């Protein structure tokens, strides 16, 4: 086990109480609403926030265990962290920023610089070596921050909202780059995010944190198909379909064709929010939806004012509609319906 966390920590009225572990090479995404304790969790693991009880262990060696008076300061933990606002040292060049960790660990200057330059090259930003942090774009700064954290070859890598500050186009590019780096990384990675797309694209496993507690954990497939609780349902309870894109058409693994708005090529995920799916009794030839499939209602689950509708057909989908719609249409389990979704409501990202 690369990272084992069993942490209780109280700050004012907020209480964090979590328990999970990570295998070597595993990437976990921590999702949760604001104030759920995501950043506090990362800070506790990094040693920036001492825990009250429980323990944090890296490679089975405890680095924080109050019961035994064990507390290894952040500098001596093999844990790298990428901060939300990158926190690049503005008085140092990009090279010196990336070499910082090695210099702090008494690697000689020449070696530290050589390593820094190699890591920067690997991330495809070798040309930025002599620049100052202030002159970098958001995407470049993010990559330098990642390079800086990875240059010390940590066992655990913590990424706090790594893509939150980037615009959509840069996000996609940096996401792909982070993904490439992380697959080559043999330690454990935790990514804190509030964007499920980042989680799907980067992580093997999801951990939903609400109000300081884990409300659900599991593979992406498990969480998306059976979200436990309202937050998970809203945020990650999406329909996730994998397939191969050719232009504006995706062919799923079950050979169902889905129209999408933009051009894509190769293996992709299509993500459809349950709220974006409309249910009707019959196919409406005049509707603008590019996609509609005959379906059978497998289950109905009440979620407050809304109802989650489990649909089975050419592909399995989950729709979310209001109580009133269910009543107006008189829908019951076992009914035959048509599910439609507009091409523009389908988010596509490359695998």
């Amino acid at each position: 086990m690369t990272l084992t966390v069993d942490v209780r920590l109280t700050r004012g009225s907020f209480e964090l109480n979590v328990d999970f572990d990570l295998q070597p090479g595993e990437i976990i995404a921590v999702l949760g609403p604001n104030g759920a304790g995501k950043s506090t969790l990362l800070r506790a693991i990094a040693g920036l926030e001492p825990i009250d009880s429980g323990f944090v262990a890296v490679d089975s060696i405890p680095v924080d265990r109050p019961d035994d008076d064990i507390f290894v300061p952040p500098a001596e933990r093999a844990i790298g962290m990428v901060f939300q606002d990158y926190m690049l040292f503005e008085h140092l060049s990009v090279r010196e920023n990336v070499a910082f960790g090695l210099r702090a660990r008494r690697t000689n200057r020449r070696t530290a610089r050589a390593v820094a330059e190699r890591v920067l090259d690997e991330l495809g930003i070798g040309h930025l070596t002599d620049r100052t942090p202030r002159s970098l774009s958001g995407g470049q700064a993010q990559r330098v921050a990642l390079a800086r954290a990875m240059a010390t070859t940590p066992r655990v890598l913590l990424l706090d909202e790594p893509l939150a500050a980037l615009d959509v186009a840069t996000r996609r590019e940096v996401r792909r780059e982070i993904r490439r780096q992380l697959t080559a990384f043999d330690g454990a990675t935790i990514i804190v995010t509030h964007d499920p797309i980042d989680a799907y694209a980067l992580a093997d496993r999801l951990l939903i944190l609400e109000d300081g507690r884990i409300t659900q954990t599991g593979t992406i497939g498990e969480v998306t198909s059976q979200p436990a609780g309202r937050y998970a349902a809203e945020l990650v309870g999406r329909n996730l379909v994998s397939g191969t894109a050719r232009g504006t058409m995706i062919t799923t693994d079950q050979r169902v064709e889905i129209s999408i708005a933009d051009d894509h090529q190769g293996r992709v995920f299509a993500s459809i929010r349950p709220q974006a799916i409309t249910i009707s009794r019959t196919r409406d030839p005049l509707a603008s939806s590019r996609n509609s499939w005959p379906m059978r209602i497998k289950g109905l689950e009440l979620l407050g004012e809304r109802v989650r509708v489990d649909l089975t057909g050419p592909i399995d989908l989950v729709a979310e509609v209001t109580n009133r719609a269910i009543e107006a249409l008189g829908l019951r389990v076992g009914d035959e319906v048509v599910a439609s979704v507009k091409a523009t409501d389908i988010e596509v990202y490359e695998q």
Partner: protein
Amino acid sequence: MMTRRRRSSRSPALVTVVTVTAVAFFSLPFIGILWRMPWRALADVIDDETTRQALWLSLQTSLIATVIATVFGVPLAWTLARIDFPGRNVVRALATMSMVLPPVVGGVALFASFGRRGIVGQYLDQWFGIRLPFSTAGVVVAQVFVAMPFLVLAVESAFRQVDSRYEEAASTLGARPLYVLRRVTLPSIRPALVAGAVLAWARAIGEFGATITFAGNLPGRTQTMSLATYMALESDPDRAMVLSFLLIALSFGVLIGMRDRWLVSALPEVER
């Protein structure tokens, strides 16, 4: 579309009048000195041995005092800013007391402590044979005593304003506290550090009351420019004018030089 006159750059007439008065008040004394300056005497006074001694002594002592104030003041400021210990406010009050104290009182206090019969001074004398009063070292002690608070206050407030997340980032990269301080915190407060050092230096070179009380007025040993100027005013007003002019020129030059070189620019430090 409505066009609006730019009003933000205009100030009320009363404020303008008061501002002009204030600027006049600050600039007139300099104009007065320039007006009364006996330019003919300039070369003679500069050539004079006592002037050179005083000028050299002032430069030497004030720079040493600034270095000492920085070496002791920066850790003190860091402790005051970052460590929450009981009596922190008392320590801060003590460390900055000499700033609000009349300098002569400071001199008397130094005499009572570091003088030959003072609580520390008697042992310095007995054990090490060190006598601070009426020595050049005494001048430096007096200057450090009055100048250090300026540095401590400027640097402490800068330490408080540093975004601690930079330091946290450094620590997760493997930097221990002293390394973080040296390579992250201090570089990021450099403008405040330089400003504090300049203020301390200015206070040191202008020091008069504590110096004359504690270290006396011995030409070549403890007679700094300020003392020499005061002495000259009684016997030779022309000489006093020239000495004042030299001090003004020196201080002005340092201020201008510092501002352009260090205070404004935030050039990245690239290690050589």
